[in-house]
């Protein structure tokens, strides 16, 4: 029980590391994911191929392998960045594939008639997309994006094993200091629950304000 009160800073740093990693990687994943979703529904064939390849390869890559390739392989490739940046890259790219699929399925849920009606009113492509299709698509993808980001937060634990400051990595110094392992894990678990519950709370609120009433 004392393990938490005596090691506030250790746990705090770990939690902060996880939050930071999750935050940056989420931004990257959302940006790349929406871009790839746009590619996948684009009228240009080669863009669709790029999007599909990106999604299919990344969705079938074990995240540990991706971390291995990025964190240990990239420096050999001549790219020198801090480990945290590498971890954000790996996590963000991996998650972007799942975001892409969520967004794409959201765009597909918008009835074709909506776009047709918009065009028949004389709207341009940008207007159709921006004022008719995307807002509707966005509203229906809030829950899947939320659970994808929760998965991202959980996946960030892998970064801890590649010497990135992060919540799971906290167990190592505690173990060496001779604290009860079970209790140190209980607080680590609690930390992850705080992070995932916060994300789920945020997305529940978003869902309440913007979600489609069914």
């Amino acid at each position: 029980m004392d393990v938490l009160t005596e090691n506030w800073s250790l746990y705090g740093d770990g939690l902060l590391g996880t939050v930071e990693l999750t935050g940056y990687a989420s931004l990257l994943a959302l940006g790349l994911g929406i871009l790839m979703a746009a590619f996948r529904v684009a009228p240009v064939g080669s863009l669709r191929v790029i999007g599909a390849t990106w999604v299919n390869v990344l969705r079938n890559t074990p995240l540990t392998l991706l971390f291995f390739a990025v964190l240990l392989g990239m420096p050999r490739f001549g790219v020198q960045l801090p480990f945290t940046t590498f971890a954000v890259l790996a996590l963000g790219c991996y998650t972007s594939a799942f975001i892409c699929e969520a967004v794409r399925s959201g765009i597909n849920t918008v009835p074709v008639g909506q776009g047709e009606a918009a065009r028949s009113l004389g709207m341009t492509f940008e207007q159709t997309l921006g004022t008719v299709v995307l807002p509707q698509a966005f509203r229906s993808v809030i829950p899947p994006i939320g659970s994808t980001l929760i998965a991202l937060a959980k996946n960030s634990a892998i970064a801890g094993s590649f010497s990135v400051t992060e919540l799971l990595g906290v167990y190592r110094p505690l173990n060496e200091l001779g604290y009860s392992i079970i209790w140190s894990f209980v607080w680590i678990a609690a930390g992850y629950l705080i992070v995932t519950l916060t994300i789920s709370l945020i997305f529940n609120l978003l869902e309440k304000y913007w979600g489609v009433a069914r």
Partner: protein
Amino acid sequence: MTTTALYDIPGPRTRRRHLAYGLASTAAIIGLVAWIVYRLVDTDQFEAVKWRPFQYEGIQELLLEGLGNTLKAFAIAAGLALALGAVLATGRLSDFRVVRWVSTLVVEFFRAMPVLVMIFFVFVALEVKPLPALVAGLTLYNGSVLAEVFRAGVNSVERGQREAAYSLGMRKTQVMTYILVPQGVRAMLPAVISQLVVTLKDTSLGFLITYEEFLHAGKLIASNLDYDLPFIPVVLVISPIYIGMCMLLSWFANWVAKRQRRSVKTEAVEVARPEPGTLLPGGPQP
């Protein structure tokens, strides 16, 4: 061409413009690939010394053994997860409130925890050997997710089926085993297989607790100074195999799903793909 809400079927001028965009993006991708290849050559990744280890029989055997261990962990974890999923799903569908609550609690807790935390907990705190620790973590997590898939599958069977069965005087167990589960299995099979892809991918977490699986074998080769630390060659050799295995299984899931959609018997039912662990009540899953 499939219709979409986003744009009309393009006319001749638009088609020409799209062709130009297509060519430009293709050129950009080719440029990127060329730059990567150039970087690889520039950092001497294709030097003979870095690729030499793959010629040795001992190293090939090491890789094969790693692959075997990966598949072994996957097979055990998949089997146990399916069993645990069945048990938990039965619990969640139980008529007894206590059983329902306990299984809900178990399912929600293990879905909310990172798999790696569970694996590390079993490995470090309970001091279990790597393979059982890996299998235990994967089983708990995937079992919980599968329980939700099973439950959704059973619930996706039309109400009339269960009502008819009850009206024939069947007991709940009979309704389940004769009517609901056989029909539910068809609907949830694609979702179950895609969850198995997740299990296969997650076996690579064994690498982090020194289980001697595929990636571990790769790391052993990659950190050998005699071959000038061939990290990139190892990644180039290992990734296609790993990604290929997972793609094969994903493709199988898609194939099954497509076949299901064609079949008259399962026409109306479709079970949502397993979400990667969620606490969101508003999600697509019932």
